[in-house]
């Protein structure tokens, strides 16, 4: 199952956060995991709105017998991240933020991957837990 949410305004960001929470709750994730992912989505979606103007957030339920997995893909067609290593450093910001967004989001999730070029940026995140069955 997957859900694609367009990110154009701040209320879309709230909608994406809420949708992720709901999907994770249905899958069986606890509230701490829900908050981790919702916060990580918040960080990335804010970046999309700030630097690219708009983008999309796709929530994908990848669970199997052994593991519950939520994969989230955040994409945009903005200017891209010039220096990914620098962007992943704590305290680095080009936009007057705290500079904790990207590296913080990475720490909040189990898997984190960035691919960026001018005109297309794709960030993939996953939170996984052993299934309780």
């Amino acid at each position, binding site marked *: 199952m997957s859900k694609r949410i367009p990110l154009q305004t701040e209320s879309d960001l709230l909608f994406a956060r809420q949708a992720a929470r709901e999907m994770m709750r249905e899958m069986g994730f606890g509230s701490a995991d829900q*908050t*981790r992912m919702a*916060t990580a989505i918040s960080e990335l979606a804010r970046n999309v709105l700030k630097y690219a103007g708009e983008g999309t957030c796709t929530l994908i339920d990848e669970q199997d017998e052994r593991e519950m997995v939520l994969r989230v893909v955040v994409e945009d067609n903005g200017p891209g991240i010039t220096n990914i290593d620098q962007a992943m450093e704590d305290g680095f910001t080009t936009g007057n*933020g*705290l500079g*904790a967004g990207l590296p*913080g989001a990475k720490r*909040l999730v189990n898997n984190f991957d960035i691919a960026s070029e001018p005109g297309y940026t794709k960030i993939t995140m996953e939170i996984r837990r052993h299934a309780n069955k």
Partner: protein
Amino acid sequence: MSTTVKDEIMGIDLKQAIPTPVMAVDKDFNIVFINAAGCDWLGKEWEEIEGKKCYDVIETTLCNTKKCVARKAMDENTKITARNEMKCYGKTIPVEITSSPLKDKKGNIIGGLEYIVDISHSVKMENELRTQTQTILELSTPVIKIWDGVLLLPLVGIVDTMRAQQIIENLLNSIVENEAEVAILDLSGVPLVDTAVAKHIIKTVNAAKMLGAETILTGFSPDVAQTLVTLGVDLNNIITCGSLKTGISKALNFIGKKVVSYEG
């Protein structure tokens, strides 16, 4: 099911019977087929439509643009769905159009098939949801005076950029008006604190300090506390308390008061 009923159903032209518009075009966007529901929506007879370009007949907002679903489906050889608007019984309504490529026996793409679904209901629901979210965001942020020199600002709901600005202004004005020494910012009702919200909180605390008031943050949920630490947000210079109760007692301490049991 009796074979006669089955035969009878299979004898019906099901393409025509589908209760939502279905249309097929060739590679040059000439309409090759449109079903009865399609003709109904457009208020036209098949004879009027046959052989015309689809964009001249259905006139949607994406027609003749790069985002035309039929064009994309044929170019990219895949199923494409997009939201759009088109005329239905003389009224423009929101629709979702799905298109997939049509291929000949050799697999060459020779046209596109589209079906159109009325999504007015879901769009209405989404808009309502947006308005409600907006209303919640716009709920005022009351500053309550709980003792001489002690203010309480309970935050409920989502703190976004606009609301954060409102919170800072409200709190700072109230600090000046009430000559407050301590302000309690209670976050019990805030479900999620990301770096943007944290930045606003830090700004508020620093600005209050300039006016001579200490700010105590209370009511972080365990989930939020854990997330903030993982994010690497530094709240070291800020006084925080687990509950509003301990926050109030600390605030009273600041002004040299304390709550004692009354023994008569």
